[in-house]
């Protein structure tokens, strides 16, 4: 096995372990730093096309290049003309042809590795102060690293997207001034907002097992002063999974709840959403 084959394997091994042990937000920065070390590059950075006007430097080493803004259009043109393949510059082109002149000042050789993932496309730039030959085994190593980097980038983007989405929806649902309880029909997952957790006397909001939620809701129902009326309505409600109810009154000792129970049915999820209002 050649040195470059070993380095490619090393890269795959180390990036396979990292995402299990460490936080996803540093996964890509770690991976780019690893590429820089393995290839003995003098500069390594990610350039992300954030919108039509913005290509932004991220995960840069040296770090002072971070947040640098470049015009995306000339760089995209270069990528198109090269068919989105890795570009190997054994010599840096003259300034007028060098679309990365801001970040490749005083370098002799560079590699531009397109990493196409949606929604934001990226590229990785590596640069060397001394001239490089980029021979056979090295090229194969870079192409292996490129494939793994695409996975790393996709995984990072997706996980960060899901985290942001979860944070946003949790914030919205916790702000709604009603107790919300969602029980998934899969029997394994459920969710409750802060108001709901307080109403049901649970330890906290967020993910809860349906069994725990059902138990807490049954206790609430059993404490109702109009328990017989509630049971009558419940028999009707649960006679079909498509049934729903609103303005269902649960009279408790110190308060009255207006309850809604709505089926939630999409391709990905099915369950019931309970809404408890205190009029």
């Amino acid at each position: 096995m050649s040195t470059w084959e070993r380095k490619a394997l090393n890269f795959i091994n180390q990036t396979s372990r990292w995402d299990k042990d460490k936080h996803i937000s540093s996964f890509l920065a770690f991976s780019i730093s690893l590429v820089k070390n393995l290839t003995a590059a003098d500069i390594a950075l990610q350039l992300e096309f954030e919108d039509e006007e913005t290509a932004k430097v991220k995960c840069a080493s040296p770090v002072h290049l971070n947040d640098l803004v470049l015009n995306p259009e000339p760089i995209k043109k270069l990528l198109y003309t090269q068919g989105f393949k890795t570009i190997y510059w054994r010599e840096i082109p003259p300034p007028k042809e060098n679309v990365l002149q801001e970040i490749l000042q005083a370098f002799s050789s560079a590699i531009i590795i397109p990493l196409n993932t949606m929604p934001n496309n990226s590229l990785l730039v590596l640069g060397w102060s001394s001239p490089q030959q980029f021979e056979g085994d090295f090229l194969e190593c870079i192409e292996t690293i490129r494939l793994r980097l695409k996975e790393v980038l996709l995984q990072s983007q997706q996980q960060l997207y899901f985290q942001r989405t979860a944070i946003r929806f949790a914030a919205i649902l916790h702000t709604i001034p009603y107790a919300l309880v969602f029980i998934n029909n899969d029997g394994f997952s459920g969710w409750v907002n802060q108001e709901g957790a307080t109403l049901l006397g649970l330890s906290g909001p967020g993910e809860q097992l349906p069994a725990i939620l059902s138990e807490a809701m049954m206790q609430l129902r059993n404490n109702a002063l109009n328990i017989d009326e509630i049971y009558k309505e419940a028999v009707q409600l649960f006679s079909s999974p498509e049934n729903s109810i609103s303005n269902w009154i649960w009279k408790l000792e110190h308060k009255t709840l207006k309850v809604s129970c709505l089926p939630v049915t999409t391709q990905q999820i099915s369950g019931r959403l309970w809404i408890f209002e205190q009029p």
Partner: protein
Amino acid sequence: MDIIKRNNIHVVGNQDALQTLMFAHGFGLDQHTFSKIIPAFEHDYKIILFDNVGGGKAELKAYSPKRYETISGYATDVADIIQALEAKNVTFIGHSVSGMVGVLTSLLYPGMIERLILLGSSPRYLNDAKDGYIGGFDNQALTSLFEAMEGNYHAWASGFAKLVTRHEDKPELAEAFAAALSEIRPDIAIQVAKAIFYLDHREALPKITVPTLIIQTANDPAVPGIVSEYMEARIPNAKRTPVQTHGHFPQHTAPEEVIDAMKSFL
């Protein structure tokens, strides 16, 4: 996008001159802020005037929250303008935040800018207790500033304008600045203000390779005098000239002194 339109560029002065002056306005202003300075240089220099995207008569649809999330986007714009106009022998005069924009452009595009004139500029506005750096603002002050901007932007604009002009004998200065601030879309003004007040380019100062003139007013509420001393000590080839006027806008309140300082430097 057409850069001339994007930045509302005007080239005035002597079109055949070998030397170019490029004037860059600060936050809340536009290219007219230099109107008392320009006539003194029109005969001998080609003069480039432009509006920063998000302000003045720059193309509003060119404003990208991503591109202008930090002042780096403005540095790229300056390079775009110089390249589009094929300007040579450029002296960049940056007022307030645009001073640091010029610094970044000169570092990222070596040879593009030959001299820098920093007018009421700062590499960091926030104090840094760890390094004993005094920028003039602490975290609490900035939090209050942004709360005020987000709460009632137009009321904030009026108060902020009075604070930074510091010329009670010339209320028209504060009124004009408040009016200019009020014309900026509030969401853009808040984002740009955050990019400015949280910037930190102290590490860039020792890397500056071009001759630099620092012009500092006697009492600038946005940039304490100690900041200009800090810059002078760290920029390798810097000269500092105090101007005997108060406030953040010496180009309005002491144009003759600013002109003298510039001529002496040029």
